[in-house]
């Protein structure tokens, strides 16, 4: 039985507390997934070191590292809070979360928003500059999980497709994805749209949405993107970033320059790398966006194949544990929450790393836990907090 094997697994994972000996509720830490915690903490530390190296060390006069430390601490704290609360509470908060996110995305487009590198995606709140599109990824995951999990009282037994959501829910889910995608596209942030689509696909597939809807999602995603590409919504430079992928050597000093420099950095890293703080491509500034989008190239140059694969292994560990938590969860909402977070992280990791090794075109998608950027880091950490909450409160 699937059920019993999962319980056994959960028992193994949840440490010493033996089944049946209920001596009060075990502590939050005891109920959390330790390997997931460990993986996340290691990734954040890895990222901090990489940012330090990519920005010239402690005495460079740049404050990326210290700011990222603050983000990590804040994110970690937020994650703990989230983990300590029962995730089921979210089902009552879905409406404010989705509406709030939508409003934030609208605000970005208002004069309150800020444009960086052709993308209108930032809101200045006091001293903090936030990127709502990052938080929107999580909001989407929560919203989709809520919609597609169905009502908690729902019982479906003995049917051929016991977990197929009702058409109204599928429509609502598509509407949610569409709304967020349109708002983000209006700010010309193509990268996040891909994430939303992929998260949508993942959650749809896992929630048992019929294939025709999944295909509909894929088609409409492609259509929206094609329209955006041809309608002049995207700046030429943004289009070039994508098309240049096809022929990076055509204009080595132009857009393709970034990817060529990234490849050069990774390639010259070799098996064991040039050494931390020693990569010439990174240290002499040849690598573009080296503390954000291209930080994987810095790692590849300075720590080599071993370092890059080590980093991917940590990411793999985190992804694996998320899936384990999801599988151990009987609650569909909790499971879909985990699945959404899993697909969100998986897509971003693959897309970001793939772009630096020229497997995929350039988009402004950060490498989770590693790239510099407060909104992205906090989002990733809160996402882990949510998974821990699922682990602790099922």
């Amino acid at each position: 039985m699937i059920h019993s094997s999962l319980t056994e697994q959960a028992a193994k994972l949840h440490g010493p507390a033996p089944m049946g000996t209920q001596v009060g509720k075990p502590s939050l830490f005891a109920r959390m997934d330790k390997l997931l915690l460990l993986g996340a903490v290691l990734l954040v530390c890895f990222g901090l070191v990489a940012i330090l190296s990519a920005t010239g060390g402690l005495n460079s006069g740049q404050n990326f590292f210290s700011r990222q430390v603050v983000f990590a601490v804040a994110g970690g704290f937020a994650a703990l809070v989230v983990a300590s609360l029962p995730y089921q509470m979210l089902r009552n908060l879905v409406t404010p979360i989705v509406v709030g996110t939508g409003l934030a995305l609208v605000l970005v487009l208002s004069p309150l928003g800020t444009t960086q590198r052709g993308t209108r995606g930032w809101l200045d709140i006091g001293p903090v500059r936030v990127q709502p599109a990052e938080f929107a990824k999580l909001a989407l995951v929560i919203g989709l999980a809520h919609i597609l999990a169905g009502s908690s009282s729902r019982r479906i037994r003995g049917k051929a497709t016991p977990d197929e959501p009702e058409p109204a829910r599928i429509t609502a889910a598509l509407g949610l994805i569409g709304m967020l995608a349109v708002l983000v596209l209006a700010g010309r942030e193509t990268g996040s749209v891909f994430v939303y689509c992929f998260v949508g696909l993942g959650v749809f597939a896992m929630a048992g949405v019929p294939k025709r809807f999944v295909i509909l999602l894929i088609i409409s995603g492609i259509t929206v993107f094609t329209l955006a590409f041809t309608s002049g919504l995207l700046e030429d430079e943004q289009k070039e970033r994508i098309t240049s992928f096809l022929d990076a050597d055509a204009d080595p000093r132009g857009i393709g320059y970034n990817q060529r420099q990234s490849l050069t950095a990774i390639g010259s890293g070799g098996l064991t790398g040039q050494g931390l703080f020693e990569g010439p491509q990174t240290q002499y500034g040849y690598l573009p966006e080296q503390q954000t989008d291209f930080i994987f190239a810095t790692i590849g140059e300075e720590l080599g194949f071993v370092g890059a694969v080590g980093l991917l292994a940590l990411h793999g560990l985190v992804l694996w544990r998320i899936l384990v938590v999801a599988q151990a969860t009987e609650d569909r909402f909790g499971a879909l929450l985990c699945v959404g977070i899993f697909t969100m992280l998986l897509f971003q990791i693959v897309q970001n790393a793939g772009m630096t090794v020229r497997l995929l075109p350039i988009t402004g998608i950060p490498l989770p836990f590693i790239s510099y950027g407060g909104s992205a880091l906090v989002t990733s950490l809160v996402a882990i907090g949510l998974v821990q909450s699922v682990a602790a409160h099922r």
Partner: protein
Amino acid sequence: MIEPISERRYNNLQVLAIVCFAVLIGKLWFLQVLSTPTFEEAAVGNRTREIFTEAPRGRILDAQGRVLAGRRESLTVELDWTALSALEAEERTDIFLSIASELNASGVKTRSVDIQKVYDRARGGSVQTVSVADDVPRQVWVALQERPYVGFSLTRQWLRTYPYGNIGAHILGYVGTVRDAEQAQTLNGINDAKRYFPGDELGLAGVEKLFDQTLRGTPEHRLVEIAADNRVLSTVEVVQEAVPGDDIVLSIDINLQYAAELTLVQELAQSRLRTACEDCPAHQGRAGSIVAVDVTDGSVVAMASFPSYDPADFLGGLSQSQADYLFKNEDRPFLNRGLSGRYPAGSTFKPFTAYASVNLDAREPDEIWLDEGKYKLAECEEDERCTFRNAGSIELGEVDMRDALSKSSDTYFYSLGEMFWTERDEFGETAIQDAAALFGFGQQTGVDLPNEDQGVLPTPARRIDLYESDPDKFPRRTWFTGDNVNLSIGQGDLLVTPLQLANSYAMISTNGVRYQPQVLSQILDGETSEVIRTSQPKIAAQESLNSQAMRAIMDGLNGATSLGTAAEAFAEFPAWVYPVAGKTGTAQVAGKADYSLFAGFGPASKPKYSVATILEEAGFGSDAAAPATRRMFEYLSGLVEVPAAPLATEALPLSVDVEVLAILDELARLAEEEAAEAEANGEPPPVSVPLPEPPVAPVPEPEPAAEVEATQEP
């Protein structure tokens, strides 16, 4: 109980993740393990660049070791084409604007469009930086250090200096910069070690041009490691150390050169004060040349050409007024009249006709000729057009060859000219020309300066050649008796350069040895100042001349300064200490005042220097060129102390030719007023100048337009 999500779906998700990670790791393996060397190479090539830095240019020194062309360091703003070309056009424009405003704020006038031009010219894959502004103040240095702009840097650069301003400018020449990569490419055929890059100094005239490869240093060639923003991080390899260019020592003495230039200007000014004959063109006295050579080795000791220019004007780029002065001025300040000016020789040519006469036994030197002031050609006794007159129609009476030279009898030589042509079966068609060619006319002297003219030695054959090449331009095919008659006194189609003239008289003085004139004395190693090369006298021709003819010519030339045409000019000159032999010349140029000439050498007893002076539109040779040459011999003989050439930093009217000309015009106006005033008072004009009859037109038709043009605009 909620239905759990089926494990099959989880498996799908796991498989997807594993496949994705496997592909990523596979690509990493390919990049980092299989193709590392390729990328390492790319990474190194990415951040190393070749940098060439111009080495200091060699100096030009005078015979006494004074620096005529030196060098100094300048703080220079440079742009880096490679770095800037990586930017978007708008970004570049923004940076150019910022740099221009930064420079303007500190007083260095720069327009961003000029920077754009410099950038455009540097195009062509050059790896060299190009200077945008020289001599920027320190504050710019500080400003750019605080706020660096992409593609711009500050360096120290060597720049040319000309301490004596325009003195000797025509000999020194000037430097400009290599325009663009294309020009550099062309130049680089010369010498690979001394590669040129856009913006490098390049000699464009005079010694700077001819000896550019000697003066040019070997640029430093470094391989450097650079950051993405083009900061130089470290030197990987010094491929070639900078080697300063070699120094050049000239035979010119700058003080003597100054004396020659001063004499030239002053005599030109003086000439304007003398009234020309009625209905004659007024003395303009706007241009001229004095050339002095050492007859014992051919070295040039002074070569003055007026008007002149300041070579320093070219260093920072010409201003509009400077460019107008240099390029639109009809007096052509660029022209080094000493070796590029083409002039009718006038009577200074007579010794060579005389040489032909004696050498071909046409007329004995002692034979007496009756000078009646005019001479009619035998073949057309009745035609007034066939009558040739002495200057001023003066009747000299009975003259032999010596007198004919010293008193400058035209009719004596007219008759020789006619005889040579009418009896050409005996003397050959080119009796006079052969003698002239013997003394170097019609050919380059071979002086080591660029743009030397070879003059014109007209012959019947040349006339036919010209006619056949372009009958419209050269309508005359036949050589007439009148042509020979004109040639006998240095008129007609004959054109000489002052240097040719000085060198031909030097050959008279040496009794047959003609040297190739040289301005180069020594080449010194740029680092050690050791002598690398000392130029040896180069004999261009060594002839055993007809001694009878030479004796007669020497007597005639000695007579000219003692009792002949130049006696007045040399009246005060101590001939017993330093005898000067020479010949005046008054050359006629259609539509202009006479050109004043003198050529001579001294001391006649043991010749050392030969001097030729030509003053355009300055009247009789005896009035202007003879006194000018006498002054030169005062300096050359040491009888009068040579003035010290002033440095350009001192106030010096000579340094600004425009001003000099203005002063001269003012002086002329004052003199005219004075004369008019005197006339009103019933007094005779103060300046008593013999009023010669206007010269009679020669028999042949007027000279072809091209030749006239050449005469007027040498």
